[in-house]
């Protein structure tokens, strides 16, 4: 079943006074099936962030459509957008985006609280997630008291707790050391195995090599994609870096 259907997405930024038009997305189309784990790669300025912002309904496209679980994002009213995002999407950011005034537990519970869930229900939900992410012991701590990897796992728990249809991850390993990165990617794999659909934007080959499919974006278009098939992480890593080398040389892939 198709969870996400992106059709001919266009985004043009117009400078002040109408001049200086920048086309961030020219024509992007792809679909994500339920239970997929997709990585989107591209260099700085390729349009990755613009794409993610549009998928997260934080920004509006100039053309094309995004259909999440059969619902066109452009048809969701502005007033309902926040709750729509809360209920259908989970976010993991490069900079964690944990509230420094909340304990990890409160940070994770925040989306449920905003949805007005009961305290008993929240407590029930947080337990298994915290345990599977290995942060059950540090739930009472504050963000400044724990490591970057632990912060990011808490952020992942926050994304998971609403049972979202899709998790959007924006450079989730960008601010982590290699050990924490590996831990987090293992967590993502585990989440995906449990049936969670994940869309991750990254320019780390290592991070992308954990995905089932890798999309390459250059100059506002989907330039290429690689399916994992039966390949191991190492083999996929090799394929990705070959592709990146080719991209950098400006070659065409047929």
């Amino acid at each position, binding site marked *: 079943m198709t969870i996400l259907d992106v059709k001919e997405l266009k985004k043009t930024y117009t400078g002040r006074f109408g001049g200086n038009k920048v086309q961030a997305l020219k024509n992007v189309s792809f679909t994500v099936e339920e239970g997929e784990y997709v990585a989107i790669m591209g260099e700085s300025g390729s349009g990755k962030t613009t794409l993610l912002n549009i998928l997260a309904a934080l920004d509006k496209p100039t053309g094309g459509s995004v259909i999440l679980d059969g619902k066109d994002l452009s048809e969701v009213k502005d007033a309902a957008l926040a709750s729509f995002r809360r209920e259908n999407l989970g976010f993991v*950011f490069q900079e964690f985006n944990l509230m*420094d005034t909340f304990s990890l537990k409160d940070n994770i519970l925040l989306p449920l609280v905003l949805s007005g869930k009961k305290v008993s229900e929240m407590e029930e939900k947080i337990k298994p997630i915290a345990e599977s992410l290995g942060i059950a012991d540090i739930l009472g701590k504050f963000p*400044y008291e724990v490591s970057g990897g632990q912060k990011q796992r808490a952020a992942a728990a926050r994304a998971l707790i609403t049972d979202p249809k899709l998790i959007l991850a924006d450079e989730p390993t960008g601010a982590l050391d290699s050990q924490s990165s590996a831990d987090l990617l293992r967590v993502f794999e585990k989440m995906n195995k449990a049936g969670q659909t994940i869309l991750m934007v990254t320019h780390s080959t290592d991070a992308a090599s954990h995905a089932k499919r890798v999309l390459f974006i250059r100059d506002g278009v989907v330039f290429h994609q690689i399916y994992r098939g039966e390949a191991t992480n190492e083999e996929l890593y090799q394929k990705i870096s070959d592709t990146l080398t080719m991209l950098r040389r400006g070659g065409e892939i047929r």
Partner: protein
Amino acid sequence: MSLYLRMALQNIKKNARFFIPRILTEAGLLGCYFIVYTLYRDERLRQVRGGSYLPAFMFIGVVVIALLTIILMLYTNSFLMKQRKREFGLYNVLGMEKRHVAKVLFHESLISALAGVAAGLVFGCVFYKLSTLFICRLLGVETILGFYYISAKMIVPVAVFFLIIDAFAYVCNCISIAFMKPVELMASAHTGEKEPKVKWITLILGILSLGSGYFIAVTVKNPLSAIGYFFVAVILVMIGTYFLFITGTIFVLKALKKRKEYYYSPKHMTAVSGLLYRMKQNAVGLASICILATGVLVMISTTVSLYAGADEMLRKHFPQELYLEAYYKDKEGMERSIPAEVLTQIAEDAAAKNGLEIREVLQQYYLDTSFAFKDGVCIVDRSRSNMMDVVTIYFMTEEVYEKLTGEKLKLSGNDIAFCVVNASSSAENYKGDLINVGGTDYNIVKKLSSFPVESSMISVFAHYGVVVSDEAVLDRINAVQTEAYGNYASPLTERIAVKYADRQAACAVGDAVSDDMEKAMYRYVESLEDYNEDYGMHYFLDTLWVAEVDYSSMYGSFLFLGILLGFVCLFATALIIYYKQISEGYEDRNRYQIMQKIGMSQKEVKASIGSQVLMVFFLPLVVAGIHICFAFPLLKKLLNLLLLSNTALFVICTVITFLVFALVYVMIYGVTAKSYYKIVR
């Protein structure tokens, strides 16, 4: 233009958000300081009729504003430096040495100081003129044209005082930069602060001191001791306010957080934890705002009440328009009174000469003498008396009392009526049922709540009033004190109270009447055979027309000072609020963005943060209101001491002051909130 100067100018432009309030602060404070300083030193103002109180009051203003200035200027300076640490770190990293940074800083300080001082002097000169007009109005005197008293003698000391503070701030900044490491300067990234903890000792101390401050304010009975207690209560309440803002708020918020059903709801979660951190950073600033606000309210409401109540106080103090008693010494050195009949004749002649009609002349005879007072016994033996036990007692016959009050007491023999006119800290409110003078017991058969002879002086000694049955008793008591005190004995007072038919007409020619009466009294005593010219004559003439000027000048000066200090406090409040809004804005920007990303709509985020900000800013106002309510009984007693007993007037003045203040506060909040949202968005 040197590089440093150019950099300094650029920095000021770039940090206009911080520099403009700093310059305005300096200008505003300098303006106010200039006004009080000039009024304090203005020789001409002293010569204005009724201007004599002004310098003394203005001196208080000079001291208070100087202190506030030092505190506020250093506060703005430290705020500015805190916000710019990262910038200085960057300079260091880019290769500027600390002395170069100090040079840039020097140019910045110089420019902003000069701008502040110049603007302040202009502001001060303009408002000085306005203040003199206002003061003349308050004092009820004609405005003197060309009333300008601005000279280098006034400007230089004021400007130098402010430049010294600026220089001091600059030196502080240089020291703090010298001790700072570039890495520390750069590391302005939010590292996250610890969740505040409840400090139980501070909490308990806060509750105790606030509670006892309130308790004193509410329970103080004696107006005289109220002055001393007032300061104790003020200090206790100040300590309590600081402590409770620091820990009390955190205690409440933590308790709320523990209640899960309450805490885990969309409305409360962000608000409670947000406030927890906000209070940690802002508690001191908020407590200061609260205390300043209370100060403004107390000063303005009391001074306005006094000024507005001056007429009524006059009416109360002067049921008649003129009171006169006069004494001379005879050849043997004994002090004698001019008989009331003679005084009456003199008053009638003077009135006739000045075209006034007298409605009534009351003749009062009473004995006004002092004893050491112990358990009802009036001790005349000086060797046994202790200054602390001294009381002044007015003795008056029933006949005179009835004339003055219209009340019949029906006393007989040694029965007396007793009144505590004015208790004091030294003598307790006497509650016994007899007093003993010269070995004779007098039974108190009636207690009076007021006495027709008012003491116009505020005295540390207690005043009692005693009504005796007839003149024989009065003579007996007089004999006791005459024998004991000899030439120092008080003569039997013969006093007249004159009520004119037309109060205003009497005031219009009052000075001429006073003059005529003085001359007539001299003529009278000089015609006496046993008049002792060496000692001369002295008299107490208490008139409405002199008191009118006195009251309006005293309370006018008081009001002016209250308004000026109130203005300075308000200014300080606005400044603290503004800086708080800005520093919070920078911190909240981050939170705002996170909350939006996680799935709060912009509206929800704005509502959540808005309500926190609102709570933080209106808490001081609410607490100031509570302080005022508790201070009310004490303030009322203090005003009673100044003979203002119109509680309704005081209530109205306080309420109006509070409402006006709240309105100004909301306006300040509104203006500063705009700059807050500009940052956050």
